[in-house]
């Protein structure tokens, strides 16, 4: 197979989905953030965001921590080192493919 086509075929499908790509890119630039921040920045609805986060958690890319801010429940999200590595690799492969 042509190496450029191989790069496209090798793109990480978990990250390649636009919604998840937004989430991973936003989390890549910070230590951690909460659910509300991602909701505000991505413009997704709660259900869609939750479903994307579950898929990222299943893949081991995102760590989800349920906690409280005062008496208000808060969901904190952090990109794992596997998630960081996968995103860096995804960017490199996409750049090469383009």
């Amino acid at each position, binding site marked *: 197979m042509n190496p450029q086509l191989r790069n496209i075929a090798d793109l990480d499908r978990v990250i390649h989905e636009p919604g998840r790509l937004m989430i991973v890119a936003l989390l890549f630039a910070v230590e951690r953030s909460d659910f*509300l*921040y991602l909701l505000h*920045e991505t413009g997704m609805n709660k259900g869609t965001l939750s479903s994307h986060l579950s898929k990222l958690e299943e893949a081991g890319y995102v760590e989800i921590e349920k906690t409280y801010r005062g008496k208000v429940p808060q*969901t904190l999200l952090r990109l794992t080192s596997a998630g960081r590595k996968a995103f860096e690799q995804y960017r490199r492969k996409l750049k090469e493919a383009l």
Partner: protein
Amino acid sequence: MDSVGNLLDRPRQYYNIDGVGELGLGFMGLAVALLQWLQATTPKDAIWHQMYLFIPYWSCMCLVIHYGSKAIKKHVTYPRTGFVEYSKWETRWRPAIVGAVVAIPVTAGLAIALRSHWNLSAPRSFLGLLLAASYIYGFARTVRWKWAVAAILTIGSIAIALLPTDVLSAVARDASLPREISVSVAATLILTFFLYGVTCSMSGGISFWLYLRHTQAPSQEVE
């Protein structure tokens, strides 16, 4: 790929979504201008010239900025548009390295210039332009109307540098200054920091007002 690059830059821009970054810088500009003005208008043996006052003054200013920003973020921003924790590289190491890279050559250059009795009247507008450039890099790139603020800072800095000496001597007194610093240089610094402080405070205040107007805390648990 550009969109991904923009997304990677979003969290940094998010810090000033409520204008807190500019309010902090505005407060610092005004506090520095006030201290410089007090030093430039009071006798050399006045309290404002003493090192034992300078350290607590500077510490208080930093504490107000740090805890003030933190309080606004905690009680206003996080409940409305979400919490972000930045990496230590973003909040500590990067500012420290950039600060050192800028401060060391500037301080060394200034020390050499003062010891060699160079005439600093000509390059005195440089500080204002440097502050305007840092404003453009830090804030104006993210919000279109802030280019007007950057223009005010740039034009203001040039206008201050062009002010006649008799106007400048109303701001600083020769008798209060160390002999290495002329009235025009001292007055330019005071007016530049004052301009930067007022402009950033107003711009930050407008951003904060717009933020409060266009956002509201979710009525219940978000997830």
